[in-house]
């Protein structure tokens, strides 16, 4: 496991043990170095002093040529096991006495004044044998320095290992006890943090154990948790408020959609009623004309003439021939029949017109019934039929406002759409264009209806006018809910239309070069690709 991810107790223990280990190793190393240095120094000094002592005792033996005594003196080296041999050589180079074996070349040339010479693991002390300034010979004492140093080294290593092991065990035991003082509050704090994180219960508080940094940290943590608790409560309240507002918004949105639908329906109904009203005007005119024709006094004159003829029933001939009034009756009847024939013809014309208008009303109502009946059903529809129906539903208004309609149908592909929604969108867009042109009243109000393939798989029905146009700032929010530039607008017609287009898998876009430069609204609907399958 990575040390960074280890518990803080382990980290502290590791730091303590590492520190102790390094300190002990350093101390042992330094002590070892010092001991070894002093051992070497003492060893050399010991060998030198021992050799000097022996050399000081040897002159009489040489003086008196007492080799046995010299050998006895050299045997004193036996008290120190590291002395492996010694040799006394007289001035003339003759061996005088020997102790044990001398297995090195003691006569190897050495620099003048050298008293100690190292030969591998051996240390050779070269001591002159002299008395009162008279040199009698040389004493060579050989000591096994390497073996002693190796023993000492092993001893120190064993001691170091032992001390290190014991010290680490003690440090481990102590750190286990003492680390709790440091890690206990931290672990408790961490446990509290974990508990808070797990349960989101911000009423929990860490227990302060001391006044040290951890205690201060605990205080700060508790204060922070308290603030978080406050903020959490505020946030929860705010979330609840937002959820409530969201619910209200959704409700409002639903209401608005319903209102939009209702408004759309109202618009459609208004169009229908307007068209029907227009026709009804003609019906009314025709009916009035017929009524007027039928209510003229001619029929009264005919009734008086008939009563007059009935009264003259006995002398009708006389009356017709001689009476001045009777003489006028044939002419009158002739003119009357002509008038009645003419009136009949006029009435027939008016009645025919009336019949046509009634048929038109039936047609409008029938179309609306068709749309109402197919609402919610996705169909494959020819876009030009949709456009023409929309035009028919708005033609009266367009004619009244002297708007010239230009058709540019360049795409005959069918689209998949809900007839009612698509018609509602188009009527809405046409009415918007009509309003836009009314606001500026150009010399010629031209409404272009263009059907074209806007993108692969999509057919666009564009409503292009030369009306008031749209400011660039408004282009980005024209489909936003509640946005309108008209005084009597409610701001959800286009929004509703956009939503309806999305529901049908299409979209509505708008383009305008600026205010006074007209606008283009496009309804893009999925194109039926093959075998009636929409993209």
């Amino acid at each position: 496991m990575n040390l960074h991810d280890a518990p803080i107790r382990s980290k502290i223990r590791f730091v303590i043990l590492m520190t102790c280990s390094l300190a002990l190793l350093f101390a042992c190393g330094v002590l070892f170095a010092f001991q070894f240095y002093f051992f070497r120094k003492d060893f050399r000094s010991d060998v030198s002093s021992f050799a000097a002592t022996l050399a000081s005792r040897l002159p009489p033996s040489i003086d008196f040529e007492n080799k046995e005594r010299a050998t006895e003196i050299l045997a004193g080296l036996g008290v120190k096991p590291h002395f492996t041999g010694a040799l006394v050589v007289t001035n003339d180079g003759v061996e005088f006495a020997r102790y044990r074996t001398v297995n090195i070349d003691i006569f190897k040339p050495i620099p003048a004044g050298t008293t100690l010479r190292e030969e591998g693991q051996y240390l050779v002390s070269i001591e002159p044998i002299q008395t009162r300034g008279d040199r009698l010979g040389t004493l060579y004492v050989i000591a096994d320095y390497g073996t002693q140093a190796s023993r000492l080294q092993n001893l120190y290593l064993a001691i170091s290992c032992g001390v290190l092991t014991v010290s680490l065990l003690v440090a481990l035991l102590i750190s286990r006890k003492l680390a709790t003082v440091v890690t206990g509050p931290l672990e408790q704090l961490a446990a509290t943090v974990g508990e808070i994180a797990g349960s989101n219960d911000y009423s929990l508080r860490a227990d302060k154990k001391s006044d040290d940094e951890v205690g201060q940290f605990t205080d700060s943590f508790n204060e922070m948790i308290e603030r978080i608790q406050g903020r959490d409560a505020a946030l929860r309240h705010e979330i609840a408020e937002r959820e409530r507002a969201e619910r209200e918004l959704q409700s409002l949105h639903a209401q608005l959609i319903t209102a939009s639908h209702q408004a759309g329906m109202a618009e459609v109904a208004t169009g229908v009623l307007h068209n029907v009203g227009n026709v009804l005007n003609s019906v009314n005119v025709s009916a009035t004309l017929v009524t007027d024709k039928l209510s003229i006094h001619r029929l009264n004159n005919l009734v008086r003439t008939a009563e007059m003829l009935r009264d003259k029933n006995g002398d009708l001939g006389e009356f017709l021939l001689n009476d001045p009034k009777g003489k006028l009756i044939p002419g009158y009847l002739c003119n009357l029949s002509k008038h009645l024939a003419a009136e009949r013809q006029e009435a027939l014309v008016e009645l025919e017109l009336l019949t046509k208008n009634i048929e038109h009303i039936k047609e409008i109502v029938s179309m609306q019934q068709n749309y109402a009946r197919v609402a919610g059903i996705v169909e494959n529809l020819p876009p030009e039929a949709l456009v023409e129906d929309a035009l028919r539903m708005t033609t009266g208004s367009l004619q009244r406002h002297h708007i010239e309609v230009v058709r540019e149908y360049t795409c005959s592909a069918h689209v998949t759409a809900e007839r009612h929604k698509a018609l509602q969108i188009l009527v809405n867009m046409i009415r918007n264009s009509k309003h836009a042109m009314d606001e500026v009243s150009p010399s010629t109000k031209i409404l272009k209806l263009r059907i074209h393939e806007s993108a692969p798989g999509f057919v666009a029905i564009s409503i292009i006018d030369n009306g008031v146009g749209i400011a660039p700032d408004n282009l980005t929010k024209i489909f936003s809910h509640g946005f309108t530039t008209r005084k009597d607008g409610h701001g959800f017609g286009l929004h509703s239309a956009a939503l309806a287009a999305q529901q049908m898998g299409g979209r509505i876009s708008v383009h305008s070069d600026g205010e006074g430069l007209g606008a283009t609204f496009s309804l893009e609907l999925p194109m039926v690709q093959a075998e009636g399958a929409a993209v």
Partner: protein
Amino acid sequence: MPLSAHCIWRQTACFVVAAVLAISASMGRAQSAEYQQKAAVIMGIVRATEWPASKLKADAPIVIGVYGSEIAADKLRESTAGRLLRGRTVVVKLLTATQEIEGCHVVFASISDDAMTRKILSQTKGDPILTFGETAEFTKKGGIFLLQSASAQAGALALRTFVEGDNLKRSKLKIDEEALISARVQPVPKR
């Protein structure tokens, strides 16, 4: 031709003379070797001896007085020729009068005359002078070291050295004990 009595006498005389000469020469050589050994021992002990500063001044030579034997004096001279003892030169003097003992640091009495021995030792008494003698009376009369030639074995001379510890103590001289051991010095046997 038969030898005449005169001739025989003369030949006998010559033979005797030759024999005497030969014996004398042999004795001389033996005596020379003996004194050479004694000179070595004396020199070794002198080297191991410390005199009081009052007796042996700084840079002063060590004076060895030999009484009685010119050979002994010669051998001592040979042993010290060109050498320093304790960093000092050594002067060997053949003493002819006891008055000369005063300036000596070492006295070797190579005599057998007890009267002369007493005279010499009375002269050195109380003075830090290292004394060597050759007779048993020497140590009894106050001498320190006794040098005795033992019987020769296989033609070799054996020199034995005895020390009279009490006399040495009284002389206020300090002698390295190791030197006494190396010189195989033995205490004078008590009788």
